[in-house]
């Protein structure tokens, strides 16, 4: 009995000491930002630096674009990260700010001899018209299509630019719900093809040129690389919180951070 | 010495719809050992547990009739059962010491009553253990866990624990059925000694035990008391045929 008491009281001390946490954060800027997991790593970097500089407490949550939108609407987040276009009814509630551009790159296994692909081929592969690598100059291997999940901003962007609708996606396509998972999947499967955010590109997979253009900051920025999308931060209409954060994002330092993540900084609108 | 300790009048007990005791009338004499015998399920334990209101703990028990203990009806609602149980101690079938030290086991009851003074407790522990013929066995290891004792010692500890409450009556429900013959023997000898100071009721399945330890014997059958007499009469010349069949092992 005594032991239980000891344990419980220890826990209490721990918790009570922790309760102070909230009060220390008062007075300084404390903000929660949540939403798209694609933007999450970038915003985490930004917040890290920003917090250090301004003695602020900006914290980043994942969840997904929809969570970001919902969270912002109901006040869970002060800002929401969204990696897809807002739906009309959402746009009515929220203000959006583009903070960066992102290229969506198509990746295959490192040993895949194919280097380049046309937009048309890409569409055919993802809608199941082309099912073998040999049809586009690769080995005689069935293509294993990997896609993101329904609702993902990356997928949204990819499908709308490549030009097919969600329901046309080849049905046996693998679906992964995170960039990392797609990389893992493709990096171990010689049959695989997938698409990820440019900022998340890793050495373990091979990037394909689209219509001969290799995705890079430059090619995205100048528009030669077609498959791209915007990263948004959204905010309840009329709210003005976080303007200092926006200042930071659009400052030189902010832009450098964005670039360091292989995204393309944009000017404030 | 032939005082009556419990005067049971028209006692009926129901578990829900099932009548477990049927119109019992019996006078239990003080400072004697009364054995309750009878086939399994005849209501011996139920009767015993009525005497310290342990049946209150069972759902759906209904009791009618009277049990007068020293003139007070202990079945009345006004009786404080917690008080009653300190006066009517109980020892169970399986030795059940609490998983604490020998000392704490004995001191448990007094402490529950609010006794805190270490000197008084020491004194109670010593005298109870002595009364239970256990003092010499354990005096050097009062702080050892009681579960380290042998079965027979544990049962004597349980008796000592009951004695520590300074009860008037000790109820024992098959106190030796979990013990080996030698430990049983010791408990029986102890009962023989204790009856000088306490009124003892003992439920037993063993005819030999009943005959060896008790002064009076009540034979239960299907919730009724078929015969109640001195143990010698019951065992040498029972009035009722059923009793004789039972004690001679011809029953059923």
């Amino acid at each position, binding site marked *: 009995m005594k032991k239980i008491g000891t344990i419980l009281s220890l826990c209490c001390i721990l918790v009570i000491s922790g309760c102070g946490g909230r009060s220390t954060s008062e007075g300084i800027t404390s903000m929660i930002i949540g939403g798209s997991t694609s933007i999450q790593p970038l915003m985490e970097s930004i917040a890290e630096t920003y917090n250090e500089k301004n003695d602020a407490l900006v914290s980043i949550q994942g969840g997904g674009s929809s969570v970001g939108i919902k969270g912002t609407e109901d006040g869970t987040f002060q800002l929401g990260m969204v990696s897809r276009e807002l739906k009309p009814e959402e746009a009515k509630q929220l203000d959006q700010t583009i903070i960066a551009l992102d290229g969506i790159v198509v990746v295959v296994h490192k040993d895949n001899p194919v280097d380049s692909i046309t937009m048309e081929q890409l569409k055919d592969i993802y809608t199941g018209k082309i099912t073998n690598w040999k049809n586009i100059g690769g080995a005689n291997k069935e293509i294993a299509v990997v896609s993101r999940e329904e609702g993902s901003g990356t997928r949204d962007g990819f499908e709308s630019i490549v030009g097919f609708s969600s329901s046309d996606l080849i049905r046996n396509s693998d679906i992964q719900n995170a960039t990392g998972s797609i990389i893992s999947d493709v990096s171990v499967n010689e049959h695989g093809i997938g698409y990820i955010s440019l900022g998340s590109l890793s050495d373990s997979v091979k990037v394909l040129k689209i219509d001969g253009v290799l995705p890079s900051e430059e090619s995205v920025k100048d528009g030669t690389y077609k498959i791209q999308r915007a990263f948004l931060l959204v905010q309840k209409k009329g709210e003005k919180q976080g303007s200092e954060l926006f200042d930071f994002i659009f400052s030189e330092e902010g832009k450098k951070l964005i670039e360091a993540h292989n995204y393309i900084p944009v000017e404030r609108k | 010495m032939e005082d009556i300790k419990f005067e049971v009048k028209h006692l009926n007990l129901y578990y829900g719809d099932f009548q477990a005791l049927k119109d019992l009338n019996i006078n239990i004499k003080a400072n004697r050992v009364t054995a309750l015998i009878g086939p399994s399920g005849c209501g011996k334990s139920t009767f015993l547990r009525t005497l310290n209101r342990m049946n209150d703990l069972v759902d759906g028990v209904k009791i009618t009739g009277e049990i007068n203990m020293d003139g007070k009806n202990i079945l009345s609602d006004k009786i404080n059962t917690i008080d009653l149980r300190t006066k009517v101690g109980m020892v169970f079938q399986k030795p059940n010491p609490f998983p604490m030290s020998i000392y704490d086991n004995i001191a448990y009851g007094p402490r529950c009553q609010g006794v805190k003074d270490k000197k008084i407790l020491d004194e109670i522990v010593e005298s109870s253990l002595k009364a239970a013929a256990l003092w010499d066995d354990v005096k050097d290891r009062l702080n050892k866990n009681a579960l380290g004792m042998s079965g027979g010692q544990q049962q004597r500890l349980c008796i000592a624990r009951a004695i520590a409450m300074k009860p008037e009556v000790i109820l024992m429900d098959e106190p030796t059925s979990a013990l080996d013959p030698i430990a049983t023997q010791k408990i029986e000898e102890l009962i023989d000694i204790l009856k000088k100071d306490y009124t003892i009721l003992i439920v037993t399945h063993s005819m030999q035990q009943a005959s060896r330890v008790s002064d009076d014997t009540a034979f239960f059958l299907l919730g009724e008391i078929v015969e109640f007499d001195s143990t010698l009469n019951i065992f040498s*010349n*029972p009035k009722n045929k059923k009793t004789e069949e039972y004690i001679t092992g011809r029953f059923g």
Partner: protein
Amino acid sequence: MLKLDRKLEKLETSVRHMGRQVIEQHKNCEVLFEHPEKSLARQVMHNDEIINNYETNINEQAIADIVLLRPIATDLRRVIVAIKIASDLERIGDYAKSMAKFVIKNLDNPATLKILKEASFIQQRLVKMLEDIMIAYKQKDVSLAYEIPTQDKELEALLQDFRKIVIKNNVADLEDAFNLSALYRTIGRSSDHAVNICEHIVYLCKGIQYDFDKEE
């Protein structure tokens, strides 16, 4: 059937056999009183050994039963009563032997033999009593057991008569008187023991020690 029941039945059967044997002896004595004769008397004396063996045997059986089967209540009474009846029967048997001995001694003593003949109807009475007792035992018949001692009273009276006969006959030889006196006591004692058996039967059936206002 319980082992205990079987054993007790066996024990009581032994007692009954013993009883039959004892009655046989006393019947033979009755014959001897009427027609004194050496060989039958010898046989009676010899047969006593069988009765003694019966008692030893019943004792052993009974103790084995107590040790091994631990009877209580009626069962125990059956064992104890068996022992007691056997002991009484043995004595009654002994007295038959005494009678036979007496007959042999007095075969050439016509005066005594004459008295003896007159005593035979008393002996007949004794035999009858013993037979009744064995019936009461077999049937565990308490009322019969209660009744039999009245026979003893009659027998007592008859014995008083017998005593008078002896004295009336004015036995010349003192030695003879001595012996006849012994014989007289023998029958009396036998009937005493018979009454004891009745007490045992009552105890067996009722569980109470009954005392038939017995006189020495």
